[in-house]
């Protein structure tokens, strides 16, 4: 038979004819050479003599960067945000299906947020194949190098997000070149994710100081946010917008485009889609407004709601007052026929109330003063709508 680019070699079975022990002596010589050479260490790959043992655990081999053993999640050191957006690609890619993800939701609106609520990997079944790390579009799950995982507690190998989180600084110590290749894209995507995460969702759970700092930031933003004007498209406040605010802003812009005049009572503008949760909240707000209006119409100023000491209650009170004013003033043609416009109106009234409160000489800090401010706001709104 003929083959290309090579020969067929028939192995030569024996070189010498006389078998009187020469082969045995050669074998002895080979082993002797190894014995003599074993008194020093084998240094590099080109040597075949020398002791090859690395005395673990006193000496350890340096692991290559690409080494993979068990995945971990990484988070950004500065902001504390996890890179994971719970996109579920790793769980889809995992062959033994050991990744279990729950996506986080915004507690206010109930919408999904690009962050994970819980992230479970069963380390005892994970085969360290690395397909999850390859599949992740956000470079959030990476392969760790830690292999001394032996334990007698099987359930302890069920790793939750708190066990899996590692800072980027840790990952750059084990695989700097691999991180350098993907650093830019990952950080850009992280910024995008951060923008879409409300509150403190997405910050690694154990960074309590970062969480506290973030909360303080958000409070400061809310307190310092400039109130939007009652009509015209509200200027976008610096900082995050909640979904409701966004919807309100969009509706306002559309209403302004459609040439609407008075904000409170025009025909319902084609407002953007609100999620069912938002619609419910809007309906609730409308109902509350109606009740409050009823109450305000009957009651005197003494029935003004108890003074709130934080901004939310103040807002609500203002909304109620504004709605009461609206209802009181309105045999107005359009009671809002859909909940969105009602919400919008409520928001506008609240802003108006805020503005009115801002015009007030001092922030009311006690009950009576708050009541007074509420009444004043109601009157102002009434006057405006007349």
């Amino acid at each position, binding site marked *: 038979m003929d083959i290309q680019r090579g020969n067929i070699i028939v192995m030569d079975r024996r070189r010498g004819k006389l078998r009187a022990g020469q082969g*045995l002596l050669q074998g002895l010589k080979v082993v002797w050479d190894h014995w003599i050479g074993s008194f020093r260490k084998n240094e590099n790959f080109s040597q075949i003599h020398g002791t090859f043992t690395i005395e673990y655990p006193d000496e350890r081999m340096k692991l290559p960067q690409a080494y993979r053993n068990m995945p971990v999640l990484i988070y950004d050191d500065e902001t504390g945000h996890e890179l994971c957006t719970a996109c579920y690609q790793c769980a889809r890619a995992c062959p033994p299906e050991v990744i279990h993800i729950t996506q986080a939701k915004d507690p206010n609106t109930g919408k999904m947020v690009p962050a994970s609520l819980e992230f479970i990997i069963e380390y005892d079944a994970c085969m360290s194949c690395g397909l999850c790390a390859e599949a992740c579009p956000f470079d959030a799950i990476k392969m760790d190098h830690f292999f001394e995982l032996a334990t007698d507690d099987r359930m302890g190998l069920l790793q939750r997000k708190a066990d899996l989180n590692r800072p980027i600084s840790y990952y750059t110590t084990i695989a700097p070149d691999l991180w350098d290749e993907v650093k830019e894209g990952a950080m850009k995507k992280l910024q995008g994710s951060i923008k879409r995460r409300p509150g403190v969702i997405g910050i690694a759970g154990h960074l309590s100081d970062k969480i506290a700092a973030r909360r303080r930031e958000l409070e400061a933003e809310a307190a310092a946010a400039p109130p939007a004007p009652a009509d015209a498209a509200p200027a976008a406040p610096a900082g995050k917008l909640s979904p409701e605010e966004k919807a309100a802003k969009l509706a306002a812009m559309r209403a302004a485009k459609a040439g609407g005049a008075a904000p409170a009572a025009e025909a319902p503008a084609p407002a953007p889609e609100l999620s069912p949760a938002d619609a419910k909240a809007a309906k609730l707000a409308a109902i509350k407004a109606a009740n409050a209006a009823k109450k305000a119409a009957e009651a005197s100023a003494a029935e003004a709601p108890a003074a709130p000491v934080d901004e939310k209650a103040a807002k609500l009170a203002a909304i109620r007052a504004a709605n009461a004013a609206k209802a009181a003033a309105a045999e107005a043609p359009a009671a809002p026929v859909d909940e969105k416009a009602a919400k919008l109106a409520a928001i506008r009234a609240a802003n108006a109330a805020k503005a009115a409160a801002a015009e007030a000489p001092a922030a009311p800090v006690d009950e009576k003063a708050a009541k007074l401010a509420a009444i004043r706001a109601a009157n102002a709104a009434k006057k405006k709508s007349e």
Partner: protein
Amino acid sequence: MLKTEELQINIGPQHPSTHGVFRMIVTVDGETITDLKPVFGYLHRNHEQIAEVNTYLQNMPYTDRLDYFNSMANNHAYALAVEKLVGIEVPERAEYLRVLMVELTRILNHAGALGFLINDMGAWQTQLAFGMREREKILDLFESASGARLMCNYFRFGGVARDLPPDFMPRLKDLLIAMPAFVDEMERLLRENEILLQRSENIGILPKEVAISYSVTGPMLRASGVPYDIRKAEPYSIYDRFDFDVPIGAVGDVYDRILVRIEEMRQSKRIIEQIIQQLPDAQGGHINPKARQNVRPPAGDVYARVETPKGELGFYLVSDGSLKPYRYKVRAPSFINLTPLGDMCRGYKVADVVVILGSIDIVMGEVDR
């Protein structure tokens, strides 16, 4: 006339020398074997059924675990099968990397297999320790390239997962200095050794026609005198660009298999040297950027085979157009090579069974899947 009784002995499944959980029911007459029945299935892990529940990419790590000694070769066969089915092209550089990894696997398999065989013959792990040392070097190279030593999961559809790290080539070149020294030393230790000759010459003869009729492949077939190597007979990947020889044996006994494996290590080294020469000029990247890993192959079937160090590994995939294979069958070389064990052992002594089994070079992960 004296009549002796026949005795049935059970070798295995727990036995230090059966290369895994493997059982042999041996019928002996005195010290001579009259019949041998292999019993396997102790390591059955339902690989083919699991493959039907996984997507094509998810199957890649599972193929590592078939022949756990040579994970790169298994990956290669599976990647070839899926690429044939879908029609993905592989860039040149990726092909070179693939062949490099497979040839390194061949060296490490033969070093280990010969070590285990000599250990079974009683040489108390000396050759095994030397073989393991060379294996360790190659496994370190695999670790730096793919991330894991044994379960490499390195091949993807359209190329390989990752390109070589910068410290790979210098270490590979160092290794190629050690490799001829290691093989020559092994030959000096083994070739003329009278005790080894007594234990392996004319033991376990498998004649040519019998080998062909049993569908034996790999070094066993070549030791029996049939010059059949898939890399030459039906070149896949870029094997048609390399010069290498095909060693065959004359008699087909255990000694011939040892000699053939030693020579194959030399030929693999030759191929690796040619790869190192030609790699810098290779076009393309380490993977085809247009290849989707979540493949959805058109309905149809394909059979792809490679020459692994143990023989011909073939994958028969049937696709019904969905993301998961409809039927996934593995033609495992160790399984087929094990079938003539009874014929090969008949007439020899009991102490030869372990030696003959070691010379077939099986790995139970493949046999039982």
